[in-house]
């Protein structure tokens, strides 16, 4: 058996695969980003797992960049915890409104949320703590993937657009 020929052919296949792979991955909207660090979705999953291991019922805090990456991954439900009037004046794109003060009226909406998606709550940002409170309520209701965007809409508006 000509081992050299065999090795050369295999080398060509792998080289061609690498060339085609990198070229098409860049053009593909579903492409994977080469990185040493796991994307936020998995990082958040791992963080959540650690929380569960510690038997902690605390929702996790995320920042703007993490929120943006979750939005890109599309596996997310964003909840605006402010009043309907505030919600209509401007919100993070695609957010739904569950005013913290009217939580009991929104039970049906909450029940209909997918338990497999990440849920991120927010309000205006400190000193508003409605996002954190609603996130804790959601955990108590049995949702496992809950985070809150602590810096809130005030922080979001600095660099990102709002939906009206």
């Amino acid at each position, binding site marked *: 058996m000509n081992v050299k020929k065999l090795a050369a052919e295999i080398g060509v296949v792998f080289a061609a695969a690498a060339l085609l792979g990198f070229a098409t991955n860049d053009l593909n909207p579903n492409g994977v980003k*080469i*990185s040493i660090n796991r994307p936020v979705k998995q990082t958040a999953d791992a963080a959540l797992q650690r929380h569960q291991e510690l038997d902690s019922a605390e929702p996790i805090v995320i920042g703007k960049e993490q929120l943006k990456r979750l939005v890109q991954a599309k596996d997310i439900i964003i909840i605006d915890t402010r009043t309907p009037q505030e919600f209509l004046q401007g919100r993070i794109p695609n957010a739904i409104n569950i005013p913290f003060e009217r939580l009991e009226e929104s039970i049906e909406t909450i029940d209909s949320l997918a338990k497999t998606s990440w849920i991120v709550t927010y309000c205006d940002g400190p000193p508003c703590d409605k996002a954190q409170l609603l996130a804790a309520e959601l955990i108590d209701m049995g949702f496992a993937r809950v985070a809150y965007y602590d810096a809130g809409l005030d922080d979001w508006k600095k660099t990102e657009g709002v939906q009206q």
Partner: protein
Amino acid sequence: MKLQGLLLLLMRLFLGALFIYSGVVKIINPAAFAEAIDNYRMLPYLFVTLMAIILPWVELIAGVLLLIGRWLRSSSLIIMLLNIVFIIAITSAIFRGLDIGCGCFSVSEDAAKVGVLRLLEDILYLILAIILFRSQTIESAH
């Protein structure tokens, strides 16, 4: 020996088509494939991304080579090596009790879970690849 030749041809076409399909499914969505690989928790994330980008094309090219009957020894050897890697990964996942999608012929979350059935499938493909590789080696020796 005609029947043997026909069987070898069928095996070759089957494995070729299977790996073309498997490659294309993953090429369409490298991000989902990366997640499927990462779920095995066996590799650092950098290797996961590189594997998600390169491996599907290796499957596709090896599949095409098998289908068109060129470089049969190297393509069947590649399929053998790939299946050995898959068998190790699935076995390790089974022993660790991981409830994850296989990432074998679909990258969706509803894809077949890792389990004994998937393991047996990969062992079957490995055997087919070995038979093809051996038949080529014997042929070239004559």
